[in-house]
């Protein structure tokens, strides 16, 4: 049978290990571990370029919609304990959606990376967002480029 002293040591080490893990990658109080991207540029007229981050509790599918030829600037974010670490983005098919890092002339504390997503070819793929504590995936739909521009209002 384990002595009280031995038991105290086990509890202490488990606590220290948990604390070390949390210092490396636990989310701030009140948040679940999460990571993603948010659009920081506008949607061009008659083109599609948007990020759908699902509902506020982080549940539900996350989607990115782009037209072929469109570019969308996004900012990375995460709920990890290391506020300043940037996320990295990985396109599931670099021929369908391109990902390029943005060079910022003026950065700020807590910036988690800026990127340009580009619609290269119609189709579907994924975007993986890797943070220091968690990875999340987006469904990506690249829509065909519009070649004619018609009045979208319904006819009477």
């Amino acid at each position: 049978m384990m002595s009280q002293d031995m038991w105290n040591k086990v509890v202490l080490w488990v606590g220290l290990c948990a604390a070390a893990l949390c210092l490396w990658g636990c989310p701030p109080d009140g948040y679940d571990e999460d990571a993603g991207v948010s659009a920081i540029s506008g949607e061009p007229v008659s083109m599609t370029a948007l990020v759908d981050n699902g509902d506020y509790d982080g549940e539900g599918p996350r989607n990115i919609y782009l037209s072929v030829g469109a570019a969308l600037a996004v900012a990375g974010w995460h709920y990890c304990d290391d506020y300043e670490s940037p996320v990295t983005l990985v396109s599931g098919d670099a021929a369908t959606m391109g990902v390029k890092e943005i060079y910022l002339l003026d950065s700020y504390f807590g910036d988690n990376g800026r990127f340009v997503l580009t619609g290269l070819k119609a189709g579907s793929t994924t975007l993986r967002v890797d943070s220091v504590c968690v990875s999340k995936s987006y469904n990506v739909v690249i829509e065909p480029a519009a070649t004619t521009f018609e009045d979208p209002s319904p006819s009477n």
Partner: protein
Amino acid sequence: MWCVACLGGCGEDFADSSLGPPASGQIGQVDLFPECGALSQACLQQGLNSPLAVGSALGLGINFNVTGNSGPPATLEAVNPAVIAVEEAVIEAKSQGAAAVMIVGPDGRVLDFIHIWTAEADELRLIRRNEDTVAIGVLRSEGQLLVGDDLLVSLEAFNGTQPLLGVFPVAWTVEVLEAEDGATPVVLVEDLIFGFTRLVAREPGRVRLTATALGLDKVLELEVLP
């Protein structure tokens, strides 16, 4: 490698270009100036606030909104070359649509980007210029000149009422409708500035001039009076 930040004429065809007003990129770190050339008064006045005519080209100059640095070497990169292609510092409208053009730094990171629209031209207009090359009006489809008169003109592309950006080659043909044998009532002289053409009335007679560009024709009939 060409640097796109060579304001005032990066390509041979644009060596005489004038710069239009700037447009900011989506990230706000770069201003882009169209190198308008002689063909587009709209470009000089509106900058990039018009679509680019399919079949035309436009040189772009760059101004970096940088403090504490010179502008870095940068290149243009097309997102959809089927709509907007990039040839060094010049963008070319290949088909109707819209596509982003990125300004990329030497390490491959994006400095900024802009979406550029293209549109098919459905009308050409002949613009008369004064000796200072300032546009003074749209030419009617027919008119009269006196021997010795000359007109400095340029051709501009429109889609509906919207003027289109871009420079494009123009082919002129002259058909003599009425003149004494061997007479050439009007002579066309390509100006030293790309995009300007001088119509010189030499002898009495009537001619039909046709300017062909972007798959369209613009016809002008002139009568030269003695």
